[in-house]
């Protein structure tokens, strides 16, 4: 039988590996709306990681701020300024 701690921490390690991919695309992407969407993927994976690390109070604060408010504020900024990042 597999050790439960290894299984649970393996979920966290998979979330961390996927968040590396999401962060890479969020920084590289030229279309700024797509960068915000990749940032939302990264926030969801970080929330899963915090849950794995036994911090439910952090998740309860982090999810409204990072999934709810950051994309709203940055989409407001993008709609006021410009959509593309010049090369």
């Amino acid at each position: 039988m597999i050790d439960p701690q290894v299984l649970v921490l393996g979920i966290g390690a998979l979330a961390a590996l996927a968040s590396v991919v999401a962060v890479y695309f969020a920084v590289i992407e030229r279309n700024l709306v797509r960068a915000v969407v990749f940032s939302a993927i990264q926030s969801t994976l970080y929330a899963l990681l915090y849950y794995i690390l036994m911090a439910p109070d952090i998740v309860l604060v982090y999810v409204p701020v990072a999934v709810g408010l950051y994309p709203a504020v940055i989409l407001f900024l993008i709609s006021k300024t410009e959509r593309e990042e010049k090369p």
Partner: protein
Amino acid sequence: MIDPVTYMLTLIILCMVVNLGIALYGIFFRPSLVKKIIAVTILGDTANTFAIMLGYRRWLSPEKPSIPPVLLNYANATKEALAEFSARAVDPLPQALVLTAIVIGLAVTLFLVFLTLQIHRLYGTTDVREIRKLRG
């Protein structure tokens, strides 16, 4: 022979270090100010993750996982129950610090957003190279 739990924790820490490097690249080398704000939020979240991993604690046994720092049966807490709670709970101090840091990060991000809005209103662009050219 390395312990698999240690291997998993090391893997998470290495991923966080890579995230930190990518976010620093985004802050220093991308020209758009909006992209810099996104990279700053990613940098702050990654630093918070390091602080939370500082307080993580290994499980006592497969039957007794480490628990969040919330005491459930406080009504009839005997001395043995409190001793078991203090042996299993993760450290609450980094979590309290991170809780404060997330809210302060939100305030800083709002300030940066309106600063960028004002820059766009004055100069008509959010590209740092254009802004440098205009001022010089």
